[in-house]
């Protein structure tokens, strides 16, 4: 089988080549280099599929392919390698698929709209895809970090694509800066991992999760910098988590994501829905063996996740722009994934990651389609009644919305339900913190249902509320095609892991994803993780009952939310009912003033500090330097005043000097005795 795994690097390199091609000769290519990108991502997709099937044969691959920095005399060697296991193979397929679809969609969204700078756009997409894929296949934390950062760069370039307007550059800056803040902790974590374990490999007997496990078991010893091993691992884990919180837009570093909607919508789909933001969650899943060792870290992850899920969902309720709603829903959904991971639901979180990738990409692309139709007006209050004008968009969008809201039997239902379920049983099993997180997650389900359908109804139902909505711009196959593909996926991907069905009906073997993720390398399997986690499970009157109750409650809440939206907004002339919330709406609309306090931090704290430091530097530090020279010069100008120009004074001073000299030496030498 020297076969497919040897081509894995090509999965990463193909989009990279398309980046180079678009950058170098994109101007001279038709469609500004789009085809290069499409061909490359299609190639990657095919290779990913091949890889996927190879993995499904039970094969995995963990191989160093490039030595980045060779350490001599016992110093650690830094390498790049490939880790192809079920998790990464799955992720490869998701990323390449969505990248491919986004490329195609871009033909409609960008090319057909007559944008300039397309080579730059496609180059950015290519580089982005390559970076993300490099991140996915990384076999160690350092490599993951490096591609993680490249992903950040690409998001900067793509969000700021329309650099001639004031908004996008600012949003791009914010996106990079906020995630950078998270990455700072991540980098410290990477360094700490190296310092602790001497390696940052994810898999194998010399991998850091494995070493950590052994260290806790007392089988090996690592440098824990004077802390207890578990404390130190928690610290390291939380440091790495900083990067995750930043990239996956978790509270409190979520503020960049809504702003990032300034980028072209396909980019939003690619970056913020399906992949880049997924990177954070993926990273936790990738090194889950390490997190599983630390109950504190897990609890914190779960809490952050649960809180973010609720927190972002509430904000999504009041937004006017369609992409803003989606942005907050993204944050919220990633909160669920974090909740799942923190709650011990490794498979559940991965599952949600996958389904979310599909339905959120779908929603973004659908929104993109709407935006094309609306001549780039994103305000939902200017829309309405688009259902008839653009049925393909409507039905696919509806599919995505149902998935997002978690309505049976769409994909989102299955995955979100499993996340909540895992959290619930582990919470019941003696981790009350998880119950708190669960409660927040559950509450968020209601809001999710509400804002999702508020969006759907405002956009597609009722009567058109503006001229453009009455006469929308048409979209072509290159928009509809991707929507169709994703619409189907959003509706159906739930089948890969129908755990509730299995539990309730007792049908064995339909938890495909569980099985899939168990096929991984030693130490990276779902089972192994389950053993590592500190949780035990407890049920409300038996497993099946718990499953049923959990599913029923979350489905009920989702439907309740959707129903409320139906009542309020599925009318020909909807009015803004959220206005009744009064001050709360203002609070929500302003995102709990999260942006404000961060902007305040930047503008009213950091800026004045830096200005103060500058004044201090100019005045005091440099002042001392100049002062020394001034004092020297001043004393020089004093010294020279001795030279009065009057020769009699010279004679006097001379005499005085001589006398002093004589007197001094006389006293010293005892001449006067």
């Amino acid at each position, binding site marked *: 089988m020297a076969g497919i795994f040897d081509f894995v690097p090509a999965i990463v390199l193909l989009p990279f080549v398309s980046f180079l091609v678009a950058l170098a000769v994109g101007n001279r290519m038709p469609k500004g280099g789009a085809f290069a990108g499409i061909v490359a991502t299609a190639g990657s997709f095919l290779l990913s599929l091949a890889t996927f099937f190879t993995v499904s044969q039970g094969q995995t691959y963990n191989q160093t392919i490039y030595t980045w920095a060779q350490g001599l005399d016992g110093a650690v060697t830094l390498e790049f390698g490939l880790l192809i296991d079920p998790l990464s193979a799955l992720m490869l397929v998701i990323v390449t698929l969505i990248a491919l679809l986004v490329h195609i969609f871009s033909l409609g969204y960008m090319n057909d709209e007559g944008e300039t700078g397309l080579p730059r756009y496609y180059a950015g997409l290519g580089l982005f895809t390559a970076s993300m894929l490099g991140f996915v296949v990384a076999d160690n934390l350092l490599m993951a970090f490096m591609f993680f950062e490249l992903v950040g760069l690409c998001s900067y370039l793509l969000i700021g694509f329309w650099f001639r307007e004031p908004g996008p550059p600012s949003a791009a800056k914010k996106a990079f800066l906020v995630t950078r803040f998270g990455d700072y902790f991540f980098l410290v974590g990477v360094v700490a991992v190296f310092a602790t374990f001497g390696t940052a490999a994810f898999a194998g007997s010399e991998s850091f999760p494995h070493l950590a496990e052994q260290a806790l078991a007392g089988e090996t010893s690592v440098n824990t910098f004077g802390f207890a091993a578990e404390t130190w691992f928690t610290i390291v884990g939380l440091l790495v988590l900083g990067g995750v919180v930043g990239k996956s837009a978790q509270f409190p570093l979520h503020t960049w994501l809504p702003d990032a909607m300034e980028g072209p919508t396909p980019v939003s789909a690619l970056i913020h829905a399906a992949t880049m933001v997924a990177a954070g969650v993926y990273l936790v899943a990738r090194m889950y063996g390490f997190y599983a060792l630390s109950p504190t870290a897990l609890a914190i992850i779960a809490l952050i996740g649960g809180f973010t899920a609720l927190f972002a969902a509430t904000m999504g309720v009041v937004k006017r722009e369609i992409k803003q709603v989606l942005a907050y829903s993204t944050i919220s959904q990633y909160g669920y994934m974090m909740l799942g991971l923190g709650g011990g639901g490794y498979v559940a979180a991965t599952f949600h990651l996958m389904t979310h990738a599909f339905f959120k990409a779908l929603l973004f692309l659908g929104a993109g389609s709407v935006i094309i139709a609306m001549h780039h007006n994103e305000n939902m209050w200017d829309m309405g009644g688009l259902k008839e004008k653009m049925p393909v968009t409507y039905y696919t969008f509806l599919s995505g919305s149902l998935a997002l809201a978690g309505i049976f039997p769409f994909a989102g239902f299955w995955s979100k339900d499993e996340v909540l379920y895992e959290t619930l049983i582990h919470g019941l099993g003696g981790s009350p913190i998880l119950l708190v997180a669960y409660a927040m997650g559950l509450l968020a389900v209601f809001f999710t249902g509400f804002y999702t359908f508020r969006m759907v109804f405002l956009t597609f139902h009722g009567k058109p509320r503006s001229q453009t909505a009455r006469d929308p711009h048409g979209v072509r196959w290159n928009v509809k095609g991707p929507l169709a593909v994703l619409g189907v996926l959003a509706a159906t991907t739930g089948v890969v892991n129908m755990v509730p069905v299995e539990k309730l009906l007792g049908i064995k073997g339909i938890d495909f994803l569980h099985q899939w993720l168990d096929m991984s390398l030693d130490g990276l399997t779902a089972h192994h993780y389950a053993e590592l986690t500190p949780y035990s499970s407890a049920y409300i009157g038996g497993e099946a009952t718990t499953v049923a109750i959990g599913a029923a409650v979350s489905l009920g809440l989702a439907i309740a939310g959707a129903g409320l939206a139906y009542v309020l907004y599925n009318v020909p002339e909807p009015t803004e009912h959220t206005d009744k919330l009064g001050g709360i709406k203002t609070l929500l609309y302003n995102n709990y003033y999260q942006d404000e306090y961060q902007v305040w931090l930047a503008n009213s704290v950091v800026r004045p500090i830096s200005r103060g430091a500058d004044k201090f530097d100019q005045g005091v530090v440099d002042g001392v330097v100049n002062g020394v020279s001034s004092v020297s010069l001043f004393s020089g100008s004093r010294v020279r005043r001795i030279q009065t120009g*009057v020769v009699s004074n010279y*004679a006097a001073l001379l*005499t005085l000097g001589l006398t002093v000299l004589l007197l001094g030496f006389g006293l010293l030498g005892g001449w006067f005795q």
Partner: protein
Amino acid sequence: MVPPEYYLVLSAAIFCIGLFGILTRRNALLFLMSVELMLNAANINLVAFSYVWGNVTGQTFALFTMALAAAEVAIGLGIIMVLYRNFGGVDVTDATTMRW
């Protein structure tokens, strides 16, 4: 002979009188004369200690000192003359165009 320290004190006195003149008088010629006085203070020592030490080195050297004093005065007068021409006087404190 009178004790040597008397000569020494005498010469010191003359030396200091000459110096006093230099320090307090502003006339260039008086300045010159004061210097002569100081040189002669040296001569007193030389001659006196020539006797003390029993050689004529000091005495001979005293002659040379006098000759040199003459040479110095010659040059000095020349300079005072051009001083007079340029500054219209022989006050040494007038010439202060350069200082500091």
